[in-house]
């Protein structure tokens, strides 16, 4: 058996990736209309740079980043701005968004090609990444150039590309690694240069042998780059778990960051976007989305323009199947259930999962904690979710902090295994909302 890297604890949900793992990425049809939220990232929302009635072209800047932790947004199609106002966002909030109606020409502004991209300096690379509006594409959507600019006193010595894709059902990163391995490796090299390190790793779960193969081939002869097969386990792709698996280092608790142990983690999709931005000057206007689940007629991996509505994408995949009951933006472990399908795909949307009745488990009728200890056995952060949930349920929020409430990153492993079907993540969020860290 090949040795694989991993972390302690975690869970093994059935991965259901067979629905789409073998489907090559297709381009989604050009949308007639896109709704582009000005905030698709963690940090300050972008500021609108267009007005209603403006004609815009593809790649054109439509929202500029006002602060350090922010990211600009760009038009994903050519056409006319028809509205700028609050629209529903996949997170459930209302967010100011620019609505563009397509002129169906898909005309873009001229981009600057830099064939000699590896000759650029670290600062030039970071500037191009920032201008392209690149954020973490794994779901967290943290502005990438910020992550690549750690404070001076933190020495970074390793860059890790996250190709784990540990969420069940999702195959977007998998397809990217199989289809565009060379560009991902180039992206990794650019990221390594931007933070000045010579050690790069690509972590991929063992259930994607073709991706491991492709990435290995693409990184052959590249000094300092190594592909690491990982154990198939959730949440293997969480930053802290991935760093632990590959380097053995543990990011300290109580708000520690990867840079505290000298690591920067980027998703493989982000690496691809970095390469396209630096090499071709291409802003982030599209991403690959896995549309899957037994509630959608034709599961697919689609290259989708940012701002395309989920309802459109589902139509492109044959529509909802009989018995579809739940639509989730993201993966089944950490994604957000949607009540309205007229929400846009944003930079952080890795998948759209439509569950059918038989995939859906109701948790309305949860029962008391029977103190079986399963949640403690699986919590990757080494917390006591049972206690946190019991205290939160009773409204004793302050006490949850004795159990390191704020180290919980809401991975859902505890809720996954709980035989009483307790809504553990909800209890955690409730407690977090009622207390302050520290």
């Amino acid at each position: 058996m090949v040795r694989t890297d991993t972390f302690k604890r975690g869970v093994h949900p059935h991965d259901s990736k067979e629905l789409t793992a073998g489907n090559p990425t297709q381009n989604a049809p050009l949308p007639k209309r896109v709704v582009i939220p000005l905030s698709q990232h963690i940090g300050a929302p972008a500021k609108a740079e267009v007005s209603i009635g403006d004609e815009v072209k593809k790649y054109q800047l439509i929202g500029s980043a006002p602060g350090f932790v922010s990211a600009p947004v760009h038009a994903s199609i050519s056409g006319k701005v028809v509205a700028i106002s609050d629209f529903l966002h996949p997170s459930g909030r209302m967010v100011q968004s620019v609505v563009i109606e397509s002129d169906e020409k898909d005309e873009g502004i001229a981009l600057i090609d830099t064939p000699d991209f590896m000759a650029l300096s670290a600062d030039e690379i970071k500037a191009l990444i920032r201008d392209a509006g690149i954020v973490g594409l794994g779901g967290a959507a943290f502005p990438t150039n910020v992550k690549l600019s750690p404070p001076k006193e933190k020495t970074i010595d390793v860059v890790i590309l996250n190709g784990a894709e540990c969420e069940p059902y999702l195959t977007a990163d998998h397809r990217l690694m199989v289809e565009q391995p060379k560009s991902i490796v180039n992206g990794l090299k650019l990221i390594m240069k931007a933070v000045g390190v010579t050690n790069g790793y690509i972590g991929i779960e063992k259930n994607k042998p073709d991706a491991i193969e492709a990435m290995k081939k693409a990184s052959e002869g590249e000094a300092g780059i190594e592909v690491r097969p990982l154990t198939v386990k959730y949440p293997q792709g969480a930053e802290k778990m991935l760093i632990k698996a590959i380097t053995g280092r543990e990011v300290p608790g109580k708000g520690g960051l990867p840079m505290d142990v000298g690591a920067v983690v980027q998703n493989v999709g982000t690496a691809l976007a970095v390469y396209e931005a630096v090499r071709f000057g291409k802003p982030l206007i599209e991403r690959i989305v896995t549309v899957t689940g037994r509630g959608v007629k034709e599961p697919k991996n689609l290259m989708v323009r940012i701002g395309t509505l989920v309802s459109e994408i589902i139509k492109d995949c044959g529509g909802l199947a009989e018995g579809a009951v739940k639509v989730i933006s993201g993966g089944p472990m950490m994604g957000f259930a949607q009540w309205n399908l007229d929400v846009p795909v944003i930079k952080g949307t890795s998948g759209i999962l439509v569950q059918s009745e038989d995939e859906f488990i109701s948790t309305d009728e949860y029962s008391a904690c029977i103190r079986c200890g399963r949640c403690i056995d699986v919590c990757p952060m080494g917390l006591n979710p049972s206690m946190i949930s019991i205290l939160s349920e009773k409204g004793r929020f302050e006490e949850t902090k004795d159990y390191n409430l704020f180290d919980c990153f809401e991975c859902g492993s505890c809720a996954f295994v709980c035989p009483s079907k307790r809504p553990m993540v909800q209890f955690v969020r409730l407690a977090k909302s009622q207390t302050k860290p520290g």
Partner: protein
Amino acid sequence: MAEEKKDKQLIVSVSPHVRDEESVSKIMWSVNFALFPALIASFYYFGPRAMFVTALCIGSSVGFEYIYQRSLNKKISVHDGSAFLTGLLLAMNLPPDLPFYIPIVGSFVAIVIVKQLFGGLGYNVFNPALIGRAFLLITWTKAMTVWKEPTAAFAALDAKTTATPLGILKEEGISKLIEAFGTKSDLYMSLFTGHRAGSLGETSVIFLLIGALYLLYKKYITWHIPVSFMATVGLLAWAFGGKSGLFSGDPIIHMMSGGLVLGAFFMATDYVTCPTIRKGQIIFGIGCGALTMLIRLKGGYPEGVMFAILLMNCFAPLIDRGVKPDLFGAVKKKKVMEDKK
């Protein structure tokens, strides 16, 4: 229009959106199932009386739970198997020959007082079946300590009364005990197969272990409590159980007799009343083992498993508070890239 209607029907709930198939009732019924081999063995050894006592305990436990929940307008949860399990465990802890009202009173104490009045499944501090038994032992001491000679003759309604192996060991010493069973290996064999006097379901070590292995395999219990419990009993029995000085005791007799196997694998492991953190469970198991031997060697009873577990139940919340799982991020930055290669 059709689309819109769909939208309205979409279910929204908090992540995760997939769940493991394990459920409380699946676990409880599995534990019941795991006790069946030993239960059948007890029917074989103790005859129709054993079946009668078992049926009474299970029937009245489930009945009391139903009546309680029904009369207080609470959600009926008898199908989850936990009341059935309490009844079954209570039966397995009783002598085979009891008047009918004793098991019923025991079930009432277990289900209504220990379980439901504390808030139902998940909230009780003590193992219900064990308190039920403790109550009966104190109230009807005589009836609760009349042991029947096991007999393969299923129809033999009035089998001889006798003492349990631990009783003989305590009163008359080890040589008498061996004599009563023939040779030492006969004694071991009888203990292993369950051909000896004792509570209904505690006697057959082999059939209890078959059930326990199934639970371990299904991960419904872990090794932490049973192993630390049994090992502590074995060690202390060996060290202090002999008449001719330290380390002259027979650990095998102590480990295979009384309610130890039943207690260690099926009662001390009761989720609700044991610690939740594995490290704490080892402490709990050691505590159970030490108290069992303290009672067996120094106390007034020949058997101590029940009181040992009940006493440790009190400490379970304390142990859980004192022991913490290994927090991620407690390790300092390490340069391990090199040695990982």
